[in-house]
């Protein structure tokens, strides 16, 4: 199972009331290419996608806010798990695509292979879904995504995946244009 397949599976089950925050690098590119536009495609600010998602969830309680980030990003901003658990917005959901690598910069290994997601998230008292596994069928993945989207609380869906990012062109929007598009779609 690859990250881009999970993003494609997610795109196929979205209702249209979601606001995605995607982490810098491959994940933002994949969300741009495979999901309805516009979304909040982060280009930099590594470690901050969860905090950005928390801010959006608080300001737009009527939207379902989905944060999609990799293991490198999660580890850089691990403290934000404590913050979101403390604030606990019902409309915030986190998808962690853990390929155990900084795939965008050339597949250098992260230290995430030592993580046990259920224990980690239980420790932060964050409701979490049964992880997506490498050997899951795409139908199984879609079901796990549906269950996660259907929860009425803060929830994290971890996905343990292989590294194979497709070659995608860069997002052709300047970040100022991304903000303009998001503001226009807020109204």
């Amino acid at each position, binding site marked *: 199972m690859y990250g881009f397949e999970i993003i494609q599976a997610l795109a196929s089950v979205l209702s249209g009331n979601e606001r995605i925050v995607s982490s810098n690098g491959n994940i933002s590119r994949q969300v741009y290419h495979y999901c309805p536009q516009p979304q909040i495609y982060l*280009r*930099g600010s590594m470690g*901050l996608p969860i905090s950005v998602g*928390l*801010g*959006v969830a608080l*300001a737009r309680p009527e939207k379902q806010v989905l944060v999609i980030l990799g293991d490198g990003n999660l580890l850089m901003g691990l403290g934000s798990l404590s*913050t979101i658990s403390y*604030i606990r917005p019902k409309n915030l959901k986190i998808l962690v695509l853990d390929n155990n690598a900084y795939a965008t910069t050339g597949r250098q290994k992260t230290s995430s292979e030592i993580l046990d997601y259920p224990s980690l998230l239980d420790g932060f008292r964050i409701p979490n879904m049964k992880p997506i596994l490498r050997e899951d069928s795409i139908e199984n993945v879609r079901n796990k995504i549906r269950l996660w989207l259907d929860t009425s609380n803060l929830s994290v869906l971890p996905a343990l995946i292989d590294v194979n990012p497709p070659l995608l062109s860069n997002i052709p929007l300047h970040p100022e244009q*991304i903000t303009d598009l998001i503001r226009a779609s807020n109204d």
Partner: protein
Amino acid sequence: MINPSEFLAVLHEKGISFASGVPCSYFSRLINEFENIETVRYIPATREDEAVGIASGVAFGGARAFVIMQNSGYATIGDALTSLAQLYKLPMLLIISWRGLEPDRDFPEHSLMGAVTEDALAGYQVPYWELTDEDWQQTIELALTKMNETSRPVALLVKQGVL
């Protein structure tokens, strides 16, 4: 000293409904005041860059936040400013305690940052004003006008005993 309840009322009147940050002893009265009000919601952050991330999300959502931190915390938010809040034109008010000046002579951990705080703000192209007892409402007006004109972060520097 500025009355914290009046201070928050003025910020709320000017459209700010969220706050985040990491405390400074200079802001203890202000942070305590969040317990008494419902107009501005405070989200305690684990790091100052996380607080800038939260304020950025709030701005993406069409609302406004202010962020409190020590100037030591300002030293941790460079990337959150340059590759997020400034790059995406996300307005927010940074309220930064100016540690490392004379009252902090026994706190060497603040000395160097205190000396370079203005250079660090200027270096990252963050417009800033010193908040004082006398004309604080006018200073807030100037700062928020600039924030709205540029749609980018602006900062207030706060010395001991002001807030």
